[in-house]
């Protein structure tokens, strides 16, 4: 069977981008559409506050395109749009004309040992140049090994060795992209006996060394703390305030003694409480409600988003001496 030229592009190039030992300089912002523009922060600097958004899912396209939804911004899964055309791409850019859209990836494998794929980074850079996302994010994890992609967010041991390894790769990626990225704390179900750092110490030090932002997923924080017996307050207090670029909010599932990061339930009360505490510590940080499976109607998602906005407003109005 012969295909068109499109199929002949499918193999892609695999090459290791040379390691860069220092972060790239700031990139002059492009002419922004609403909420766009490249953000290359100084260490500890946060991107502009976008408000309260939602993960953009296919089933909500009609609602969003109709112009009837109220939402401050959207986040999309990067890999769904790399090298893709047709209706999905057209819809993405239609939405981008009216809303800021952040690119959130799942396959960067920043903690992995396979060379970071040059074709992936080039495609990401190309998409970002067209979409002008306020920032680009992915996860602190590894995804691939031996050229095999697990399509899951697999945990890292938190050691000085792995920290130095991830630091090098973050700097490499940021230099290639010409901008800083944000990394999300992934939910985990197993840890490593030889870890010497806590997850929050690892994230904080990584942000300090590279200037990357932290996408603090409060559901994932809750899941991981539950699963490993960590203290939630220690986690929050261990993250420097200026390093958090974004919050995620979502609802997990219970599986026996553990919580599973399914992102298919409403945000539970304990995560709303974490959100309040996070706002008190980190201030007005762009917040996003994620719902990845058994996705409800837009009105349900919107209600969660509005609740987040109301809770943030309540916490920001509290004075410093207000009791929690």
């Amino acid at each position, binding site marked *: 069977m012969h295909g*068109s030229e499109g199929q002949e592009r499918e193999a892609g190039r695999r090459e290791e981008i040379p390691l860069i030992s220092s972060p790239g300089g700031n990139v002059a912002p492009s002419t922004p559409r609403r909420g766009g523009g490249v953000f290359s922060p100084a260490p500890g600097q946060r991107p502009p506050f976008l408000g309260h958004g939602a993960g953009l899912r296919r089933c909500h396209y009609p609602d969003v395109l109709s112009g009837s939804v109220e939402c401050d911004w959207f986040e999309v899964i990067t890999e769904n749009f790399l090298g893709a055309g047709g209706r999905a791409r057209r819809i993405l850019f239609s939405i981008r004309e009216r809303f800021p859209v952040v690119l959130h990836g799942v396959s960067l494998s920043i903690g992995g040992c396979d060379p970071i794929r040059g074709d992936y980074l080039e495609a990401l850079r190309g998409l970002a140049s067209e979409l002008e996302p306020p920032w680009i994010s992915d996860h602190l994890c590894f995804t691939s090994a031996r050229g095999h992609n697990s399509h899951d967010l697999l945990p890292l041991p938190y050691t000085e060795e792995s920290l130095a390894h991830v630091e090098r790769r973050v700097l490499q990626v940021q230099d290639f992209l010409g901008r800083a990225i944000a990394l999300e704390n992934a939910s985990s*179900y197993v840890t490593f006996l030889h870890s010497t750092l806590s997850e929050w110490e690892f994230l904080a030090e990584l942000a300090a060394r590279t200037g990357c932002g932290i996408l603090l997923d409060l559901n994932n924080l809750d899941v991981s703390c539950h699963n490993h017996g960590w203290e939630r307050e220690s986690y929050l207090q261990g993250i420097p305030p200026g390093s958090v670029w974004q919050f995620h909010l979502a609802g997990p599932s219970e599986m026996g003694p553990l919580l599973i990061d399914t992102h298919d339930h409403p945000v539970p009360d304990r995560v709303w409480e974490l959100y309040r505490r996070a706002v008190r510590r980190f201030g007005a940080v762009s917040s996003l409600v994620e719902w990845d499976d058994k996705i409800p109607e837009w009105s349900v998602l919107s209600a969660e988003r509005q609740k987040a906005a109301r809770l943030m407003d309540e916490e920001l109005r509290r004075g410093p001496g207000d009791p929690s």
Partner: protein
Amino acid sequence: MNLEELQSFFLSLLEAPEGVARGLAGLSAAGMPAGDLFSAHFRGDERLGALARVDIYANMYFFRLRDVLAEDFPRTRGVLGETAFHNLVTDFLVAHPPSEPSLRWLGRPLPRHLESSPLTSSLPFLPDLARLEWEWLDCFQALDAPALLRSMLAPVPPAEWPELTFCFRPSVRFLSLEFEVEAFFLESSPPARPVRRPHSLVIFRGEDEEPAFFEIDEAARVFYESLASGRPLAEACSEMAGVCEDLDAGGEAARYLSDAFDRELFSPKP
């Protein structure tokens, strides 16, 4: 183990088709001190042991990929039924572990994998059905390109036409099938079994952004595939004439070109 070895070990356990425990046993049987390495690195607790925790990842790995394949190949799954499809996916992932950053490409090797599957002894049309499902999906998601219109070729002198080469739009697909699987793919109440009838299709993306197809004869297939491989028009005509005797090659080429322009299959060269 260093970090790279640890990650390779971890992924091996996720990829083990019969679960983490059997995966560890398999690695041990191959001479690796897998049990000791596992115990030395992975932490569990009194609520759930390390093996069961890693099993969570293993289950997520398999069922996420199975669900993607089920969504991309719904008819194939329907023909096989849940158990056989589950087993197919198990074998497929062992033979073709995912390697691309996007799940969009996960199912690309599945039609070829089916060609050598024992399933085809009783379901010989299955590879064709999967191939149509894949090409349909790939067409839908293919990159965009503007259409080459007839009017854009008007300035080209007729003498230069034999050396013209054409680009097909990225969404265009040529598909040669042994079985009539189209009805099986499209209709809610398909025939019991597709009949064997070798034929070829062109799949393309219409103005409504939906895939569509039309059947082509052998001469058209040779002609279009020759153009798609980059050969100039005159060579494509010659190739067609060489395969199909007693053919008015020039007349047929003109008709095939006209069909392609009508359906906006070509794009200007980049």
